[in-house]
């Protein structure tokens, strides 16, 4: 009898119960705590904060726990929460030049004022499984020699050094009194301004941007990139209350910034000089920041008089498809019932087959 879709409510409740059980796993194994996720899966936390567009490590950890480690699902959870939050103020632009730097490398100069700082990086690790990590170990006492505090040195950005000679295109601030596009409040429209583009890319899926950035390196919209500077560390977020004559700091956030420097032969209006692509993420997100910078530069093709010819240079293609919430939702909605549409197609295909068969028969009879 016809029972296929009845009892939806009970089925949903049962599915939720099963999900909760699967999430918990074997109850003999101790449950994960949020501080454990925040501290020990910190790169997952920062990815969820970046693409979830909300700086809150604790909530990001909760989202990761709830999503059973599915980061795209965790990003969704955080976004859906974020969109309900009231807005108290708009912060001033963060000044990464005043960053409390924990990592800073430049691939364009051997030495730079302030020096190169490797910081906590996977870059020179050998990717050998460390079987010592398999079992929890007591924490070793900090090494007295190595924990010597560094004297704070000013670290001017590499872009500023190149800029002094006019070799690098200046980064002109736009009209600061003009209202900024806010993608979380307004729909994307084209041509998108750079601020809208950078917002979309900052929230965009890391995997998608990584592959697009990679495609530019393999010749699909080549833009000759150099990693001018990658810096990671803490910056102060400031707001300017109307009633005060000075800005006040409301907290610190960890960010990763990538200034990509790209060769440029010049155009009718611009002399040969280096151009830029820009990437910024919350937390330590180098892969994403670098990919974002490559794609940002690729998307500047029109502005720089280059002929767009590749997917990474196609603004509508990139910006409409980079959001993991939109992509994941629409791909997975194919799971929802489509009985009616399918039935309509069935009716049509049968009629067309009948018509074709009748036509063949008539032909054979002739």
């Amino acid at each position: 009898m016809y029972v296929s879709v009845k009892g939806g409510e009970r089925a949903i409740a049962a599915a939720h119960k099963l999900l909760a059980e699967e999430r918990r796993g074997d109850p003999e194994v101790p449950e994960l705590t949020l501080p454990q996720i925040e501290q020990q899966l910190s790169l997952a936390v920062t990815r969820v904060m970046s693409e979830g567009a909300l700086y809150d490590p604790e909530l990001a950890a909760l989202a990761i726990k709830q999503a059973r480690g599915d980061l795209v699902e965790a990003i969704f959870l955080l976004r859906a929460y974020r969109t309900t939050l009231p807005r108290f103020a708009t912060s001033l632009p963060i000044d990464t030049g005043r960053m409390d730097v924990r990592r800073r490398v430049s691939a364009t100069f051997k030495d730079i004022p302030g020096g190169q700082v490797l910081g906590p990086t996977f870059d020179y690790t050998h990717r050998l499984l460390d079987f010592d990590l398999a079992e929890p170990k007591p924490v070793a006492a900090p090494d007295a020699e190595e924990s010597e505090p560094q004297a704070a040195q000013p670290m001017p950005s590499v872009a500023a050094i190149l800029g002094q000679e006019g070799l690098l295109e200046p980064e002109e601030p736009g009209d600061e009194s003009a209202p900024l596009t806010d993608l979380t409040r307004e729909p994307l429209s084209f041509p998108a301004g750079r601020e809208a583009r950078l917002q979309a890319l900052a929230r965009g899926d890391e995997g998608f941007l990584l592959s697009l950035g990679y495609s530019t390196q393999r010749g699909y919209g080549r833009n000759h990139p150099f990693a001018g500077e990658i810096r990671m560390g803490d910056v102060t977020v400031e707001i300017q209350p109307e009633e005060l004559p000075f800005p006040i700091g409301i907290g610190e956030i960890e960010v990763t910034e990538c200034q990509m420097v790209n060769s440029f032969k010049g155009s009718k209006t611009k002399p040969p000089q280096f151009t830029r692509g820009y990437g910024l993420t919350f937390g330590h997100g180098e892969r994403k920041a670098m990919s974002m910078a490559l794609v940002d530069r690729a998307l500047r093709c029109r502005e720089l008089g280059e002929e767009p010819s590749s997917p990474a240079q196609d603004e509508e293609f990139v910006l409409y498809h980079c959001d993991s919430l939109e992509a994941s939702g629409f791909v997975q909605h194919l799971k929802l019932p489509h009985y009616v549409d399918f039935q309509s197609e069935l009716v049509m295909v049968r009629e067309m087959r009948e018509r074709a068969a009748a036509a063949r028969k008539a032909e054979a009879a002739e």
Partner: protein
Amino acid sequence: MSGTETGYNYAYLDEQTKRMLRRVILKAVAIPGYQVPFGNREMPMPHGWGTGGIQVTASIIGPDDVLKVIDQGADDTTNAVSIRSFFAKTAGVATTTRTEEATIVQTRHRIPEKPLKEGQILVYQVPIPEPLRWLEPRETETRKMHALSEYGIMHVRLYEDIATHGRIATSYDYPVQVNERYIMRPSPIPKFDNPKMDMNPALQLFGAGREKRIYAVPPYTKVKSLDFDDHPFEVQRWDESCALCGATDSFLDEIVTSDRGDRMFVCSDSDYCGDRQAARRKEAAE
């Protein structure tokens, strides 16, 4: 107004967002069939599950409303159940499965079989709002084509269908022209439902969340399914009638009942079918 679900505003969205949505809806009603861009919000359901329709409903719903939600014509499909309980929880609103009792009907893929009345609002969930999208992937281009009523490519496509297949090979999401101006996608309803849109006394609102567009067909507006004089628009027909209620005038779903390929046909509109079955039982009892 505080919601029934602690921690969230009435009907989930904050009042600023609802105001923005209502302005967009008013504009959509003023320009029938025109896709108005809006600032989509992340909803607690995924895109593709009806976030556009849900945002439209959330912005128009009030405590006195009675909500009906259908998916594939039925009230008891899982996603319809989920959306109905979302509004029952966040808006404390009364829900119904009866088309005639509802003030708002949110739908995916069908228009109810029972005629709608003045004062009712039908909210469609729309996956892709742009009727020209498969012909031209670029939004910048399609917006221009709408602005200039440059719909030649659509007619060419329909003509090519006839040339190749002897008929227009579109069975759902069949394009319509609204108020003799904009070409509009009716959302993936079967073309069987297209005639119901024409001069409908109810207000029809269309929400596409992921694509960030809202459009509308005001009450008593002309909605014409595209066709040619020598190939007039036709709806699907079945040789069978509904196995449960005997209806011959409704859209039938095909249910496979055995692995030998046995089939039965039943109404996709569960409310319509239920009413007819009840009437039959009553008749039989008398």
